[in-house]
Structure formats: structure tokens, C-alpha cells
């Protein structure tokens, strides 16, 4: 809130004086702004002064012309704010005001010919309107004469977002269709339809056929205005774990639990889950196919504050969340018909709740942990997750900040790689999981030739070794997993990434997502490749 605006000038006879002030009497006429007008070095600078709990912003300007007495005219428009108030947005207001007045004075002596008494005249009413409009509407449009108008809008200032990375996944926070028009930047217009919370930046630039660096800039621009979230590349081999925000957010906030239920419940998915078979091997559990279909809906289902997307609110009135229907149904044990039944009020509701309620959602989130991939987690909770869109489930947590992605980093040591052990263990029973790179961009091409074995080995190894103490640095990461995968890979390797290319990613500062994106390989390929790296490679989860 602007407390006051005043206009002072250097009078050739009286010296510095306050000519006009709004509100009247806010500033007792005094020579005080003399400061700004008598220090010639500070003319044309934005000045700021704190006093008595007020902060005064001013921008003194000196104009030279023979038409003035002493050949110069010094004036200053100042804005008074409360000291504790954020003044950043007003800096530009003061500057703009000064610039406009400078122009007006140059054109027709707007200020120097204003001889009206204090509290009257054009300049005064300008200040008055400016203050009222900015305080009430945060913007103003004040016509001054036939040529000039004072247009000011208070813009909030946001921190500059960090550079966008190729392996990040943007997701709109609002419906871009609502505010995009044909005047937009061409790159922006092309990339926007591909932003869906699934495609990585790199993929977006490929799909939109736009220059990569321009894509990044465009996305960064959207980020600046808070139009995007940045997510990670979702895959079933990724690891997520709760952050310290867990309890204060989803753990306590029942509204957020409802919001979550609405977002993740397959019942509200805009399109019925018709799984594109090309995306998921037929052996997969039903959910990943739902991912494929809901993925493109994400763009149109913006995660605005309530995460209610209009398409689904067609089916349900959002005003009244029935406690029963918002919650995803529990998967049936054997009989699939129960999942389609609309009424949950079966006699055994009490003893065997057929729904995943808020507390159960929290439990599900809480059961995500370090060292456990989404796949393993799904296997353990498949019944609860039967009617839940896994990707959305994870994404929701990441967006709300109570989940974080545990990234993998590879770090090569100077030790020679130990010889691959004999297949001392067999993959654990998780072989029915989806492929690792299912949702990673480059897996699409290779997914058809996939067999789940190698991925299973990878994960399996960490599981297997979880109990062992002696395994030293190599446990939990599957480096030691032996023969079968490499034999498997040998026959389908087309072109191998060179060691020296790989080496620069192995300093522990590049996460797997980055390596995979930049080398255009799937995580599984990368893992296999790392095994054949001549030096020992340690994998750090962070």
C-alpha cells in the first residue's frame, strides 16, 4: 500500500520544496527532499530512505534547458511506503513515473508551468489518482493529454528459475489453452502441446521439432511465471521416498488427501483406461497401461490448486465430494466384479473396507522408501493400488513436495572392475514387473525387444544383498549381478557407447536420468553397459 505520494522540486527562490502531496498534509512542507536535489551526483538514481517506519522511494531528475531559471529544473516524485513492506515492485513505478514526467516536461513544460496551489491542479490530481488506483487495483491508466497516458501495473517479482535440464519433465499448472494465443512465440506454440508431465524436455524438443536451447528458454519462461512444475522422468524402476514435508502436508491435511484421491482415482480419469498395447507388454499388470492413456490427459487436466480438471468434473459435481465415492476402490482379491460396483455399502464395509481412504493413502505413501523401486512397492501393495493411477500417485507427492525422487549417480573408481561373479543368485520373484524404461523416452523404441530378466536382476540384486553385511561398496546396486544379463545383452547390443564418452558421466555428479537422456539409452542398457566398464563403478543413491 502506498502511504503517500509527493512531488517536490527545486525552486530557484525558495530552494527545495514539496509542491504537491497526496494525501494532503502527509508531508509537512519542508526542504527535506533537498537532499535529492542538491546532490547532483545522485540525480537520476533511484533513492531510498527509511525513516520513522516509512520508506521513501524517489527518483530525482534534473533537466537542462535555457528556458529555465538557472538553466535547469530539478524535480522528484516520491512514493512513501511502510518500512516493512516489500518495496521491490514499487521501484519500477517510481522510475516510470519519473520518466513519464521527464517526457511531459520536455514536451510542454508540464511541471514547470504548473503554478497551481498545493492540493490543486493537474499534477496533484495525477498523484491522487495514481495512489488510489495502485492501492485499489494494482494498476492504473490515467490519460494526461491527447498524447500521453500513464500506464502502470504492479508486477510481482519472482526469483529467476534455474536452467531447465534435458531430463526434466515439465507439467502445466494450469490450462495453457486458456491463455495462449497466436501472438505467442513460435517455439512456445510448438512445444506447449507436448508438455504433459510425461515427456522430458529433450523429448519435447524432438516431438515439437524445435531447437533444444530455445525449448529450454521457453520452458524457463513458463517456469518463471509459475505455469509449470518440474518433475522427474517417471519409471517403475525409480525410487521415491518421503521428505520432511510428509507429516505437515498429506499426513495432516485431510483436504489434501481428498485432493489426492480425486487426482489419482482411476474412476475420475478423463479417458477410460484403454491400454495402448504398444506401450506395455501384455504381461504387465493393468496399471501401466492406464499410465499410457492418462499420460496425455495430464496436459489437459491441469493441476491447479484443487487439481480438479474440468473434463472429469463433467461426470462428478466437484462441489460435493461424497466421502464414499472419492476414494479409490480397493482391488478385488479374486473377483473383478466388485471393483465395478458403484455402491460400496456392502455389509462387510466395516470389517473389510473396500475403499482406500485418506489414512490408507497416507500409509501407501509412507511405505515408499529408499532402496525400493516403485515396482517392488507396487508388488507389495497391488491390491490397494488396483484402482489408482500409479504415475499420478507418485506425481502428486512430488508436486506437493512430500515425496522426492532418489536419484542414482554413478561414480567410477580407480579400482579395476572385479570379474563378474558366477550367477550366484537368481533373480527374485519380481520378474512380472514392467520394463525399466517403460516411460523413459528412449525405451519406446527398444521396448519390444525387451525381456524383463535383466531389470529383475538389477533390482533383485539389491534386494538379495539387503541382508548381507559384508557386501561392501558394491551391494545394493547390482554391479555384481553376474553372467546372465551380460550374456543376454551381448547379442542385442547394436552400437556401444565408448568408455571415454561414458567416463565423463561417471564422476558422481550426473544422475542416471541425465546419462540416459543424453546418451539416449534406457536405464537398463546403461546398467548393463556400466557392468562392462573397465573400472569399478559404484552407484550412489541420493
Amino acid at each position, binding site marked *: 500500500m502506498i502511504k503517500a505520494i509527493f512531488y517536490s522540486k527545486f525552486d530557484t527562490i525558495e530552494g527545495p520544496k514539496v509542491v504537491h502531496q497526496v494525501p494532503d498534509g502527509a508531508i*509537512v512542507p519542508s526542504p*527535506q527532499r*533537498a*537532499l535529492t536535489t542538491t546532490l*547532483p551526483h*545522485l*540525480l*537520476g538514481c533511484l*533513492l531510498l*530512505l527509511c525513516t*520513522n*517506519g516509512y520508506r*521513501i522511494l524517489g527518483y530525482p*531528475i534534473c533537466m*537542462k534547458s535555457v528556458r529555465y531559471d538557472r538553466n*535547469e529544473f530539478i524535480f522528484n516524485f516520491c512514493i512513501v511506503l511502510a518500512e516493512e513492506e516489500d518495496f*521491490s515492485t514499487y*521501484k*519500477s513505478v517510481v522510475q*516510470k513515473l519519473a*520518466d513519464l514526467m*521527464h517526457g511531459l516536461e520536455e514536451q510542454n513544460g508540464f511541471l514547470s508551468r504548473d503554478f497551481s496551489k498545493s492540493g490543486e491542479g493537474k499534477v496533484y490530481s495525477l498523484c491522487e489518482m495514481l495512489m488510489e488506483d495502485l492501492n485499489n487495483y494494482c494498476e492504473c491508466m490515467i490519460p494526461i493529454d491527447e498524447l500521453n497516458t500513464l500506464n502502470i501495473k504492479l*508486477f510481482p517479482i*519472482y*526469483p529467476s528459475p534455474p536452467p531447465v535440464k534435458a531430463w526434466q519433465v515439465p507439467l502445466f499448472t494450469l490450462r495453457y489453452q486458456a491463455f495462449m494465443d497466436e*501472438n*505467442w512465440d513460435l517455439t*512456445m506454440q510448438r512445444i506447449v502441446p507436448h508438455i504433459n508431465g510425461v515427456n522430458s524436455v529433450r523429448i519435447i524438443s524432438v516431438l515439437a521439432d524445435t531447437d533444444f536451447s530455445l525449448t529450454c528458454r521457453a520452458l524457463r*519462461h513458463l517456469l518463471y511465471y509459475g505455469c509449470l512444475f518440474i518433475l*522427474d522422468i517417471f519409471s517403475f524402476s525409480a525410487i521415491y*521416498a518421503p521428505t520432511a*514435508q*510428509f*507429516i505437515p502436508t498429506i*499426513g*495432516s491435511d485431510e483436504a489434501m488427501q481428498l485432493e489426492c484421491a480425486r487426482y489419482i482415482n482411476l474412476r475420475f480419469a478423463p479417458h477410460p483406461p484403454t491400454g495402448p498395447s504398444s506401450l506395455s507388454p501384455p504381461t504387465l499388470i493393468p496399471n501401466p497401461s492406464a499410465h499410457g492413456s492418462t499420460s496425455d490427459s495430464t496436459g489437459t487436466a491441469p493441476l491447479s490448486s484443487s487439481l480438479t480438471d474440468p473434463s472429469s468434473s463433467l461426470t462428478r459435481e466437484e462441489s460435493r465430494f461424497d*466421502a*464414499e465415492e472419492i476414494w479409490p476402490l480397493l482391488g478385488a482379491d479374486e473377483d473383478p466384479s466388485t471393483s465395478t460396483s458403484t455402491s460400496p*455399502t456392502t*455389509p462387510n464395509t*466395516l470389517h473389510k473396507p473396500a475403499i482406500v481412504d485418506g489414512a*490408507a493413502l*497416507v*500409509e501407501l505413501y*509412507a511405505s515408499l522408501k*529408499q*532402496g525400493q523401486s516403485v515396482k517392488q512397492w507396487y508388488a507389495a501393495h497391488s491390491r490397494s493400488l488396483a484402482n489408482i493411477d500409479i504415475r499420478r500417485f507418485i506425481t502428486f507427492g512430488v508436486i506437493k*513436495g512430500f515425496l522426492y525422487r532418489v536419484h542414482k549417480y554413478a561414480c567410477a573408481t580407480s579400482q579395476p572392475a572385479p570379474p563378474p561373479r558366477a550367477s550366484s543368485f537368481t533373480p527374485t520373484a519380481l520378474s512380472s514387473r514392467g520394463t525399466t524404461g517403460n516411460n523413459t523416452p528412449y525405451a519406446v523404441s527398444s521396448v519390444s525387444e525387451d525381456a524383463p530378466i535383466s531389470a529383475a536382476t538389477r533390482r533383485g540384486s539389491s*534386494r538379495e544383498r*539387503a541382508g548381507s*553385511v559384508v557386501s*561392501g*561398496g*558394491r551391494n545394493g546396486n547390482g554391479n555384481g549381478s553376474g553372467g546372465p544379463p551380460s550374456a543376454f545383452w551381448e547379442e542385442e547390443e547394436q552400437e556401444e557407447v565408448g568408455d571415454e564418452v561414458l567416463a565423463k558421466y561417471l564422476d*558422481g*555428479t550426473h544422475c542416471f536420468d541425465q546419462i540416459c537422456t543424453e546418451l539416449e539409452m534406457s536405464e537398463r542398457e546403461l546398467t548393463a553397459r556400466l557392468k562392462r566398464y573397465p573400472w569399478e563403478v*559404484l552407484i*550412489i*543413491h*541420493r
Partner: protein
Amino acid sequence: MSSIARPPDPCLVAIILIVRSRTGPRLVFHYPPNPLSENRIKTTTKGGRRVSRNRTRSKNTDSSSSSESGLSSDEDEDERETQSHAGGSSVLAGRRASNFGLDDHLPAAASPAAGEPQRPGSLGSGRGSSARKRAAATEQDPEDDAGTASDRPDDGPGSSRPPWESLLGVPGSVWEKLLSPSRSWHKRRFEVGINDLALIGWPVFVREDGSWRKQRRKKQKKPRAEWDGGELGHNDSAEEGKKDEQPVTSPDLGASVASIAESLTSPTDSKRGSGSGRPGKQDESLDPEDKDHMTMFNVVFVVDPPLLEYSMRVKEIYENIIKKFAKALKWEQARTDYVWKESQHILQMRRRARETKTSTNNLYSELISQSSLARAIYTVYSSISTSKIASVSLSPDVSISLQIPPLTSTPYLTGPMDKAYPGLWLTTADSATPVDDPSADENNTPHQVLAKHFALLLLDSEAAIIKDVEASGGALAPALTHYIRCSKPTKSFAQISASSGIPLSHIQMLSSHLVYWRRARAIPPIHQRDTYIVSPNCDLSKLEIATIAYQTAFPTYPSLPKMLSTLSGTPRPYSNFIPSKDHKEIYFTILAWLLRGGWVTQLRTFARIKVSPEIKMAVEMALRKEEVERYLSKGNPDSISVDEDSDSGDANDDTHSSSSSSLDSHGSGDETPTASRLDPHARLRFSHKLLDQSTALRLSSFILSPHRASPLESRWLDEIFSRFPDDPRTAQGAENASPDVSPNDSQALHKKYWPVFLKYFNGYDAMEKIPVRENLKRKLVWQVLMRLGLTTGPLGAMDLDTREQVLVSVRHW
């Protein structure tokens, strides 16, 4: 996310000392000689914000290049900045950051910058070119005397003006006028902004009687012995002890803005200043100045905080540095006329240097070596601007230490959109927050008292710290040395106190001293049964350097990457990684090393009680039964008002339907009572509250704070407790997992500890605290917790009774 606290960033550009005497204000000293030009070189290596800010700046410059010749490229700007004083276009040029922003390739017209007019590039030059400005300077300003005119930077290097008399492209006389406020600013924050720079000071004025402090307090010269925020091993700063020694002159709050008038030099003032002061400055000998007295001094810190962090940065440096430093100077001034004497000394040397045409560098090295005040300012600048502790000695008697306390830990993990501070200790185990203390039995003044269940983790080797402590030989040194020797990161303060005999309050005081002065950190005691993970916030870019340091520290043990990799898998208690009992000590040392560097963090477990629908229904029915009984016992319905009658009638109906044991009848009744629930005539609040809950009856929920449970929640808790089975069968089951606990114990265990543990089940208190706080065995605590439904690791697969599984746990740092 604005909630993320940022570590201190000094943003310090320069320090200016202004004194005012009868002859007018004087810019006595400023450091560095050429601010921002040096700064730039130094800070670009800092990466992060500075770099980006520079980029923003150059971008702004670019955008204004159309109006301002010569501002077309970064190189130009750099060049000009290095030239610093030479020219009207100073370093303040183009430093606006009003559109902190993005690249200039903003596609949409929505950028705030788009609508803005172009800015002039110079601090001094107003709108126009410097030529115009020069014209202005010579033609105008009747009150500018020749002395000021010769201060024009535009006069170039050829003039007789020594380079050190201008600062940031603005001559000293301007600063003198700007930075010597009126008396109403006495001991208050003085803040002026010029473009993106903020100049902050804490001016001190001489008292009416000519002294610098109240007389009666003069005796208090001896520094206090107790720690008072003073620096480790230094004489405790005297002025620290006597904060608020004088009542702060109450600011005339009622005064209108007009009183600012007096605050700054009015034109008459400056005229007088230039009339009488300047000649004195230029050619008078010391003699008249001897009779002169200082009336004010003001140490002004020039900072350039990013716009968005402005108030935070300004507050940090004001509270921690500016005020304390000025107070110290005031103390010395009162004692020995220190500031005035030193100022005269410095001014004299400057005069001499001017005559002999000494170079700036020589003058500054001479000043710093000969004047303790100049040295103090130099020390403050060089330490604070690099976020270090400044140890300043003003005289042999008085020395102080200043710092902006750094952020030691954060609970927030930054997302990809936030600015990250890798390497910062990621934890919710904050030793000073009340959350840490459910019973709130501690004195919770931050920084003063550390929770007694924390341990001390030294941030340097014990020997190095002791050496420093002994070298400085302060009053605290022996006590500190003794304590440091006793301290172990595996033992809490309370335990150390018990074992060493040092009183707990002393330990807490000494520890907070060490923590405050960055020698140690308060952590939850390291324990082999606790779980540690690779910190998501660790700084992997330092991995290479750290690996070497680690190698030298622990040459025969697995390398740092190996260790991190080991800790990367499924979280397991640290004991799993210790190969044998003999290795325990060294593995604890390794863990301490990892914690110190922020490489790992403790994974802590938090739990909440989940109330299942069964419990809710049972309580609901019991309540209704009570309701009915109360109603019936009241006997005659005539005595009850109509409202109550209808309400209890409702309740009665419901009770009937639900007591008919069919649950779906209750469920179907769900829709109809909605109207009656909204009945404004409700008088039986309790029963109505329950009715409101009835929709939620079929959903489980959490009890948010068990030790402050509502009446209904208390009923639920009682119900949960009453359902704990105590049949021997469960005891058997539990016994399998806990062979060393006798069956009898095991049976009673969870019932016994339930009331004790209850208050920890709030989701904010880590389960790891329970053993330390309640002084129980970890094993026992975990057995009980496990039976209550805590699932951590493979042991969770015990055969457990579902009635006991009431906890929902989550693990994070």
C-alpha cells in the same frame, strides 16, 4: 518455495566510516578502496547467485544500450567497473534488477521489463550523456564551492584529486552529506538506498554533555567472564556485556514524515559544511583540529542484496554485524576517544599521501598497518564478505568477534525449481525448536540452551580446536578444553554430564558457545542402531575432493564413494555396516566424518496413531448408549426442553438403528440425518459433534496430537488401548522375536509403555528420541513399537496381532 530459509549471504560491498565534527562531516575511511571491482573478481568464482546476477545485470545493460552509448556489452561494463572512479558512469550503472528475470528472449509480451522505459546507465549522469552531466556539474549548484567542483570524477586522472577520495564513482563529499544524518537517528537504523545498493548504519552521537555514555555506568569496564556471544577463546567483548547499557533514545514515532527533513543534511547544512569544513580539511594543520570534537560517527555498510531477499539480508547484517561493531566502537570511543583519535590519524595519513602522491595501494597498506581502526574495518570487510568470523581487536584490551550465524541445517529438500544449497545438513532434528520437546520442559531460548538429549559433533579435529582454544587463552579456555576432551558424538549432553561431572548447564553453555562459533554442531547422538542414509542434499560435486580428504583420514577403510554406495541401498541400521566389534569406534568416527560434511543424514521414524472405523464405531455406540442412559436416568421428559427432546429423540432413533447391529442400516441413514445435523437448535453439543463425525465413521483417520487429544479422540485412544490383547498367544508370538525378554514382560510391555510413548506419536517427534529421552533400551523400545505396527526393515514381518497395529510410520530425515 519461499518457506525455504536461505543461509546467510553477506552481499557486502564496502564499509564506510563517516565522522562529523564541528567542521562538518568527513569520510574518513572506506574499504575496499575500489568496491565492486574487486568484488566482482572474487565473487564470480562463488558461482550461483552472483554469476546469475551478473548475467542479469549485463542483460539490463544490454537492454539500455540503445539510450546510452558505450553500454553495449559486458566487456564495456567490466572495463568501466575496473576503472571504478574514473568517470561519471560508475559501477552503480545498470545494476537494476527490477526484472529479475529470464533471458531476454521472452516470447510473450508479459514480461514486466517489456513495458519499462530504458534506464540511464550511470549513477551520476541523470538522463543524458556524461558530457551533459559535466556541463550540469559546472554550471549549477550555487552552493558548490570550488572544492566540491574539483571533486568531479569527470575531471579525470589528470586532476589533483587522489583516487581514494571517491567511492563507487561518487566523490566523498557527496557521501559525507548523504551519510551523516541528524541526531534523531542516534542509535537507530539508518538506511539509505541508491539504485541497487543499500547503505546501512547505526550512527552514534555525542551526548549533550559531551560524553559518549552515561557516567554512572563507567565502572563497568571489566569484561564479563561468562560467555555472552563472544568469540571462542577471545576476550569476551566488553561491549557485548553491556548491550542496552543506555536506554535507547525513543524514536519520535509520532513525528510526521516531515521530520525526515532534519534527518538528512539540509542544503544550508551542507553549505555550511562546505564553507567551513572543507578548508579545514584541505589545508589546516592538526592544531585547530585538536580543539575540534567529534559529534557523531557512523559506520556505514554498503550491501547489494538481491531484490527479493532485500529485507532479510539487510536485517542479518544489521543485527549481527553493524550494530555490534558500532557498539564496540562506541564503547572504545567513550573509554579512550578511540574513534576520533583514529580518524584524525587516518585523515592525516591521507593528507600526507595526497601530498606525496602515494598510490592507493600503498596508502591502504599503510593505513591498515598503522591504524587499528582501519585494520578493524578491513578485517570486518574481508571476513564478513566471505561469510567468515571476523575477529577484530580495536586495542589490546578490547577485541570482538562478529559473524552472521550460518544456517546449519534445513528440513527442506529443495526441488528442481528452487535454489539449492548442497551440502547443508538435512534434518528435522533441530536442537532448539519446541517441536523437539513434546513436554516443553526445556528453556527454549534458541542459541542459548541446547536440548539435553543432543550430542556434540565437533566440526574440526579435536586437537585443532583445543589448540585454537588454548592459543587464544580466554577465560573459557580451560573449561572448554576439558569439555571438548570429554565430549563424544555418541553421548548426549546429559550422559556426558553424568560421566564427566561437569554440570549439565555448563555443558549446554559451552556447547552452544562452540556451536555458535562454528566449531561444533548439535546432533542427535550417534548410535549404531540408528539408520543413516546418503543425504539427498549432499554435494556430489565435492565428491572428488572429499574422497581424497577421506582417504587421508581413513586410509585403510573403504573409500568415500564406496561408503556412500554402501549406505545407498535399503536403509538399514548402521550396525549392519560395521564388520566387527573391533571396528566399532572407527566406524563411528567415519560416520561422524560423513555427518560433518553433510554426506549422510539420519533417517528418523515418525509415527501417528491410526483410528480404524471399528474403533470409531465401538466408541460411537458406547457414547450413544451413555446418551440414552443419561436421558433415561433423567426420567421425566417434561423437564427437558423441546429442543433437547427432539435432539435426543434423533439420537435415540439412531441408536436403535445402529444397535440393531446392522451396519448398513446406519450407513443408509447417513443421508437423512444431514438436515437434522444442521439444526440450529442443537443443544447437546457433544452428541452433535459425534453426529457430524458420522460420515467419517467409515473412514479411518489419524490422531494428530495424542497428548492434546479432544474428548472424542481420548475415547478412541482408550478404546484402542482396551483392545490390546493380553492373551498369552500374542505374548508367545512376540517372544519369538525377543528372546531376551521374559514372556511376562513381553506381555505387559506394550501396555505398560503405551501411555509413556503416546505423546511421541504425533508425527513430529522421532521414534529415535524415545530411548534417549525416556532412558530406555533401544531394543525394548523398538520391540514395543514394532508390535504397535511400526514397520522398519525386515523385522516387520513378525506375527502380530492386528489389534495392536495402530501406528502408521513414515521415515525421513
